[in-house]
């Protein structure tokens, strides 16, 4: 299945990640609202990768599970990592610009959400959204 990787090193890359996620979401036959939720979540996560992780990469692929079709996006950085995951997922918490809804907001927009992070070893966020 389609599986593509994009670097995230500047603002323009965040826009490109949004466009890539949109096109894969269309291929996976997500509804318009599902597409929009996923693309918005990807935008938040790509910006996190850039702002907090100091850059990294996004991998986006069309996945299937039985008759279900969906999109998985993985965001990796080699930044300082997240010390307190619970705190980072709290609404309103922010250590940078934005409304503090980035990570927590992204989690509410997808079906599956996981974060792997430890101080010093970077952060990997994996999100999945299935077509209804």
């Amino acid at each position, binding site marked *: 299945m389609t599986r593509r990787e994009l670097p995230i090193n500047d*603002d*323009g890359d*965040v*826009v490109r990640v*949004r*466009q890539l996620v*949109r096109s894969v979401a269309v291929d996976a036959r997500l509804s*318009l*609202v599902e*597409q*929009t*939720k996923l*693309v*918005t979540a990807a*935008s*938040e996560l790509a*910006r996190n990768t850039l702002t907090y992780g100091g850059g990294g990469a996004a991998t986006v692929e069309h996945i299937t599970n039985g008759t279900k079709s969906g999109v998985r996006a993985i965001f990796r950085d080699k930044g300082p990592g997240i010390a307190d995951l619970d705190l980072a997922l709290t*609404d309103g918490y922010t250590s940078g*610009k*934005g*409304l503090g*809804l*980035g990570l*927590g*907001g*992204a989690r*509410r*927009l997808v079906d599956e959400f996981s974060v792997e992070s430890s101080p010093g070893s970077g952060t990997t966020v994996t999100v999945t959204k299935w077509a209804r």
Partner: protein
Amino acid sequence: MDSVPILKIGDVLLVSIQTDLQDEAVMALQESLAERISSTGASGVIIDISVLDVVDSFAGRMLATVAAISRVLDAETVVVGMRPAVAITLVEMGLSLDGIKTALDLERGMRLLSGDGALA
């Protein structure tokens, strides 16, 4: 980098966002809008986002900030043309955009501003 044109119609500033914006462009728009409101003495600002298929928390924060800045400068901001999928996503994310006036389209946005003027 794309810069977003700001049009002046009567005493209303009209911003029609035409493409998916980079964060930098979003910040630039916020700054130039504040400047234009102050230099023109505009009483209203309309931001047309009908073309946008994604509004994330960064862009959402820009809309809220522009509304707050213009209020301080004695102007009213109306966001018009938000798509249903975008609205559902913002609500799901927990972004309520309190204090921002909204209208279905440009025409109704203009009417909303002139109506306010009549009441004030």
